[in-house]
């Protein structure tokens, strides 16, 4: 079922000569895990903000076309309604905190949407288990490490149980370990709730194995939109546009280019290891024979 539709959607920020998003047509199905990639200035954040109503609500500019979320144009939603359906996590965890302790931060959204105390308590327990933030509950969020902060931001949005999660570069300020933990939370959410997740990311190692679909934006337009393996078959285009493929994929692409391997690209290190094992076994058999 299509839950988000961009229909000839364009957005031009005030006093900007060209549109940040230019006549985009996109349909997002329920339960999909979507990765949105592209260089800086491609329009990724604008696209994300357009889904949860921050655009045009909070920004001045010219909108053309439609953004339909759950069969209703974004602008037709009463204030606060859309945010219950679309959860948003921003890149700078520090900038998203609105409360004095981790616990206050996690419950803030739930209080806003009018949940009762028992409901809040139940969801809080679930989120703490999911994000492993229990020991930090009484700490001020701004005293946490970058990874912990982002897990708090993620937990605060998850607690509102939105049907769609939009994450705008959630790991851009994190070290590799924290990055892994954030993606683990997303993986668990996907398994438990089957939410629709839209992640904007530059770092593709963690994103690609989880994504059902990858969309590449460039200069405000959709340049590529496909499932991950097919997506990386367009390696020359990706390289031309400055997209850094995960090491495993880039390596196998080189092998395929050199004629040492053929077939589908592996997306994870495990898949690559299996494929390499097969390649070595084949090579050994060839040498023996």
């Amino acid at each position, binding site marked *: 079922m299509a839950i988000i539709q961009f229909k000839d959607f364009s957005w031009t920020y005030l006093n900007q000569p060209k549109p940040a998003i230019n006549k985009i047509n996109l349909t997002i199905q329920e339960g999909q895990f979507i990765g949105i990639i592209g260089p800086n200035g491609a329009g990724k954040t604008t696209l994300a903000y357009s889904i949860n109503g921050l655009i045009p609500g909070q920004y001045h500019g010219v909108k053309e076309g439609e953004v339909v979320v759950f069969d209703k144009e974004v602008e037709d939603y009463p204030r*606060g309604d859309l945010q219950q359906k679309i959860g948003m996590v*921003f890149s700078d965890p520090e900038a998203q905190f609105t409360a004095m302790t981790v616990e206050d931060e996690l419950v803030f959204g739930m209080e806003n949407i*009018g949940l009762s105390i028992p409901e809040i308590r139940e969801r809080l327990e679930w989120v703490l288990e999911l994000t492993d933030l229990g020991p930090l509950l009484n700490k001020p969020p701004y005293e946490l490490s970058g990874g912990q902060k982002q897990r708090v931001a993620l937990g605060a949005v998850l607690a509102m149980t939105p049907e769609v999660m939009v994450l705008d570069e959630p790991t851009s300020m994190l070290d590799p370990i924290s990055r892994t933990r954030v993606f683990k939370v997303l993986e668990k959410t996907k398994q438990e709730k089957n939410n629709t997740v839209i992640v904007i990311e530059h770092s593709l190692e963690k994103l690609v194995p989880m994504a059902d679909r990858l969309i590449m934006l460039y200069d405000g337009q959709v340049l590529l939109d496909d499932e991950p393996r097919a997506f990386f078959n367009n390696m020359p285009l990706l390289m031309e546009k400055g997209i850094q493929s995960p090491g495993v994929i880039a390596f196998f692409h080189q092998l395929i280019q050199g004629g040492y391997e053929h077939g589908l690209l592996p997306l994870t290190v495990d898949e690559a290891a299996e494929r390499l094992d097969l390649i070595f076994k084949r090579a050994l058999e060839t040498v023996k024979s």
Partner: protein
Amino acid sequence: MNKTLLGYVPKESPINAIHPFVKLFFLLIVSLFPLFIQAPEWNGILFVAILLLMAYSRINMGIMRIYVPVAISMGTIILISYTILGGIHPDYAILFNVLGRPIYWERVRDALVVYIRILPMIATMVFFLSTSRERDVIVAMRSIKAPFVVTYVFAMALRSAGMVLEDFHIVRQAEQARGFDTTGKSLVYKIRKYVMYMIPLFALSLRRSEEFTNALIARGYAFTGEAAKVKRADYVLTHYQFRNLDKLLTTAILLLFVTLLVFRYILGFMGLESSLIHLLYQ
């Protein structure tokens, strides 16, 4: 240790058992006491009592050391403004002359009265800040059913103060890394070049407020409209209970205040005329 606005308090401290409202009530009411007391010895007793309360609450009393230079400079400024810069008063009694200017007994006494009035006020504030977290202030305000928006804006103000300081630190480090450093330069130079810090700080603040607004909207918060009318459950308050001890303390503070007013304005105690300093001079 529990972190507070001004430091740390041990987990075992008896102050941790007190409801945040009582602490805020203590601050608001007890800091008014010196305004009604003129006699320095009574304000001195109040000051010592607050220090004893701090010690009982197991606050690190070393924290008071940082206020000693402030207290000395404040005392000096008050004394100078009341005496040397206090004007000519032919009716007053001259104690001695400094640089040809008369120093009056009444002005010295008034300086002392004002100074000893301020000390317990500061001690009350230090006591509150040393035993409360930001969350306590919010809880105290919500306990008396202050509108959510008011408590929220207050919380934001508390938080943004820290954020601005942090941003200022970042801006200064960035400028130092690019060779701009006012260390060791004259005050005039520092003031003139302060704009170098203020412009990026201002730009950062604008960006922060935009991000902050986005975060609030993303969490479903609205100041106006239908979404603002949603009945909010106050989950944080479920962690706090207003026990009998809290009721007792609140009543005691209130009674103390009423007693003070009775003693001061009905029975005529704690005034300047009956103070030790006045009797001493006569």
